[in-house]
């Protein structure tokens, strides 16, 4: 737990307004995983003395307690560095660490909106990857000045010239004055700091204008309540001030303002161009919409900052406790998670196969995984997750339009006029030799090619793909067909009408609601057959034979039979064995309670989980 330090110990003046706009630089670092973002951030913190050597640990931003507390990479965070430049002046450099995944594209865009410039960090031996590309385009869109930084130039495999050309060809950035560094050895960190001061523009803003501050992110702190990360555009934020959230209309009184050094350090106020935090006795982050504009209640701004979007889950799945007794614990845990992550949604749901649980909405597959992992790790919950579903738009014949995010809720075909599904625009970068396989995969998943360009021996394919096809094991397949060399990024790209059907899975003629899924008619049979086969492999033979079928409406499209187990009998059983045998029987009966009942068939938890995992 990090509490705000008192002003006396702060290396910063208590009145932040002393920092003139021209002495502030706000910047983000854009990099692919493993290209050295965290190491560079560490070096910058180290070089500017924000932390003493004693406090310095590897990858400060990733491993600080506050970050761990907030969960991995979902949240933006920031650190303020004090840097005395070669021109003799001291600058406040605000490093904005953005979440690094496609699921959080909107959150990234708000972090970028809080800055004027970015460092584009590229591994000089690897070159540009898809994720970097998506983020750098976002930065360009945000009007950023971008400084290319080639990292790992100490590696024998480094090819700075090739990577320079690649950046120019792919992104169109001038790389003639790219900064060549090795974050690992600390080589030329000074060059990066100078480039930040001399090449990135200072922020602009009017301290006298009505308050306009961007709500970059927020998180829940057990001691302080909700802490909001803000970027002040105009006006000032100060303790005691009554503020208003322009999107929600909520009004709060500021209790504390401050900056991150990287620890929280209280400051009397925050002026234009500054990045810092406020607390205002807010109980839940759901009241703090990322991208909202904070203004003064007494003298509100005329219009909010542009770019605000309410967060909308794009992937849904059911979460059920393995042990039905854990339902209340799951409810409580979801509530506590949502305190800190307003982007995920949940509502109670009941399944015939799985009992009581929740339908949960996420920003994407990684987000889903993170939440599941946190529920397991932090709350000790053993969960079953149903196959992820995207949000379909059902147009009924009576003109009604409704969102559908649970295949089990799909209405009868006779009342459906048409169904629309969400599409994405995906960017895939892949070495030449795997391109064929990647294109084949995209086509197989109903992809539409938008663009295909070559940069050296790497290809960049831009495809429109139904999101439905991506949540169905696309990442795994992409990784496997490209031997892990393809990088992938996407953005949502609207809805389009599609010939979709619901496939029900029947076990001994009874439908298993939790296994139902929606697919394009052209893929229904293949996928139905695949899941039947998988269930056949996963479900151990039982006392009686089991029929597994996939069906669209009443029409069976695939079937498999699991034969009865061949032999299961204790060879020897005499007087002394009766007690043991009875206890074994009783244990087996107890074990059956942990089986999932499908009609009259009991399926071991592990088999069901495996079926869902790959479904």
């Amino acid at each position: 737990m990090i509490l705000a330090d008192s002003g006396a110990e702060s290396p910063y003046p208590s009145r932040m307004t002393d920092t003139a706009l021209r002495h502030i630089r706000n910047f983000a670092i854009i990099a692919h995983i493993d290209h050295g973002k965290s190491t560079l951030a560490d070096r910058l913190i180290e070089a500017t003395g924000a932390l003493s050597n004693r406090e310095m640990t590897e990858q400060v931003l990733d491993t600080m307690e506050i970050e761990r507390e907030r969960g991995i990479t979902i949240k933006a965070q920031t650190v303020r560095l004090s840097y005395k430049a070669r021109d003799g002046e001291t600058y406040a450099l605000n490093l904005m660490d953005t979440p690094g995944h496609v699921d959080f594209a909107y959150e990234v865009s708000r972090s970028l909106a809080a800055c004027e410039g970015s460092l584009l960090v590229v591994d000089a031996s690897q070159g540009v990857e898809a994720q970097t590309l998506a983020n750098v385009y976002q930065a360009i869109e945000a009007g950023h000045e971008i400084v290319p930084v080639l990292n790992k130039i100490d590696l024998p495999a480094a090819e700075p010239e090739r990577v320079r050309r690649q950046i120019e060809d792919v992104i169109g950035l001038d790389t003639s004055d790219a900064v060549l560094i090795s974050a690992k050895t600390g080589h030329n960190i000074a060059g990066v700091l100078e480039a930040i001061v001399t090449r990135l523009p200072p922020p602009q803003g009017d301290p006298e204008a009505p308050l306009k501050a961007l709500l970059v992110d927020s998180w829940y702190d057990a001691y302080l309540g909700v802490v909001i990360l803000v970027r002040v555009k105009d006006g000032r934020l100060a303790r005691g001030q009554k503020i208003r959230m322009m999107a929600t209309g909520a009004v709060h009184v500021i209790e504390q303002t401050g900056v991150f050094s990287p620890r929280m350090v209280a400051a009397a106020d925050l002026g234009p161009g500054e990045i810092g935090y406020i607390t205002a006795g807010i109980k839940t982050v759901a009241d703090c919409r990322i991208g909202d504009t904070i203004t003064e209640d007494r003298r509100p701004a005329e219009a909010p900052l542009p770019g605000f979007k309410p967060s909308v889950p794009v992937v849904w799945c059911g979460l059920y406790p393995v042990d039905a007794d854990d339902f209340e614990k799951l409810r409580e845990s979801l509530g506590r998670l949502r305190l800190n992550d307003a982007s995920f949604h949940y509502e109670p749901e009941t399944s015939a196969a799985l009992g009581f649980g929740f339908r949960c909405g996420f920003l994407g597959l990684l987000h889903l995984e993170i939440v599941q992992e946190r529920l397991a790790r932090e709350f000790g919950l053993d969960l079953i997750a149903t196959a992820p579903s995207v949000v379909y738009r059902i147009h009924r014949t009576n003109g009604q339009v409704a969102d559908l995010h649970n295949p089990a809720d799909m209405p009868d075909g006779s009342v459906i006029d048409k169904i629309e599904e969400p599409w994405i625009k995906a960017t895939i970068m892949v070495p030449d030799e795997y391109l064929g396989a990647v294109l084949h995969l995209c086509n197989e998943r109903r992809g539409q090619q938008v663009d295909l360009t070559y940069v050296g021996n790497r290809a960049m394919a831009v495809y429109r793909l139904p999101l439905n096809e991506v949540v169905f094991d696309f990442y795994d397949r992409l990784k496997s067909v490209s031997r892990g060399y393809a990088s992938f990024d996407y953005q949502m790209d609207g809805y389009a009408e599609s010939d979709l059907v619901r496939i029900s899975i029947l076990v001994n003629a009874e439908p298993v609601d939790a296994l139902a899924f929606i697919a394009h008619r052209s893929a229904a049979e293949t996928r139905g057959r695949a899941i039947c086969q998988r269930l056949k492999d996963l479900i151990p033979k039982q006392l009686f034979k089991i029929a597994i079928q996939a069906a669209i409406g009443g029409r069976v499209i695939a079937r498999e039979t699991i034969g009865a187990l061949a032999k299961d009998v204790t060879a020897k059983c005499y007087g002394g064995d009766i007690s043991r045998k009875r206890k074994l029987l009783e244990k087996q009966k107890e074990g059956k309670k942990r089986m999932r009942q499908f009609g009259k068939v009991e399926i071991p938890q592990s088999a069901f989980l495996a079926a869902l995992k790959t479904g």
Partner: protein
Amino acid sequence: MPPLALYIHWPFCLAKCPYCDFNSHVRERIDAAGFIAALRAELAFEGARLGRRPLGSIFFGGGTPSLMAPADVAALIADARRVFAPRDDLEITLEANPTSVEAGKLADFRAAGVNRLSLGVQSLDPAALAFLGRRHSAGQAIAALESARRIFPRLSFDLIYARPGQTLPAWRAELRAALALAADHLSLYQLTIEPGTAFATAHARGEIVLPEGEEAAALYEATGAEAAGAGLLPYEVSNYARPGAESRHNLAYWRYGDYAGIGPGAHGRLTLRGEIVATRRHRAPEIWAERVGRFGHGSVAETPLSPLERGREMLLMGLRLAEGLDPAGFARRTGRPLAEAIDAEILRQAEAAGYLAWEGGRLVALPAGRLRLDALLAALCR
């Protein structure tokens, strides 16, 4: 009430077999006199509380009871005959190993009153005998069988099959050879890996791989066919006999009758004061003997069984038998109607699948049902 069955456990062996999880112990020296005295004390203890009930069978099991002195066996038989009311056809079985030492004592055991011998042959294949850790050769086994057949009116022997790598033709050949030597009863067990044995360790390491599933089922079915060909019928899952030659002692277990168990680790089911009490003796021979010295018995648990427990026990034993269960007898013995003890829906499915049937008013597990009896019971028992 059917006559009482008496089980006497002799816990010592010359060596521990790698597959065996019975309560057996290897000791350099054994205070035989002390242990025999303790067994006789326990016999007296059971006699005192059971009264002179009709006695149908005595079974000397182990361990290796053929390591006992025939005179001691005689003394225990005499005690049992005095304490209980022996039936004229009292069956007295002794388990023996076909080693030369034990084989030399067979006539003396017969003289002591043993009228049924159960020989632990286990295999007629030298390599298999070595794998199973047996101390006798195939030749010794055959010799012991031949001499036992002359000495005892009734004779049975055990074989272990479905051994690692054992093929169906190889087992058929071995079994045919065994059937040629057989008298009227055979116990044919598929090798199972029991926790805590040397085989369990080897199995966990992947050094032992047993035939499973279809393969094990095929071996089992071939066993039944070969035995039937020789006139031995499967009256229980692993026991084959000419009609009338069934082990009456073991039938008492499977029919869920009363049996008294004395000696280290022995279990009993006794009707006492209108209840069925499960009895269990301390497993460690020395501690058991010490307790008998102090309390007159080495019992560590005497647990009355609820109707639910009795029902489960009677079902899991009774369905092992080809004769199955009689609903009236079931209700009388367990205090629970059979229809309440089993799941009607599973019964219906099991009948449809050819696992269970009603034969002459009795619920019977058909061969297909007996082959899957553990899974069937887990579903069927309520």
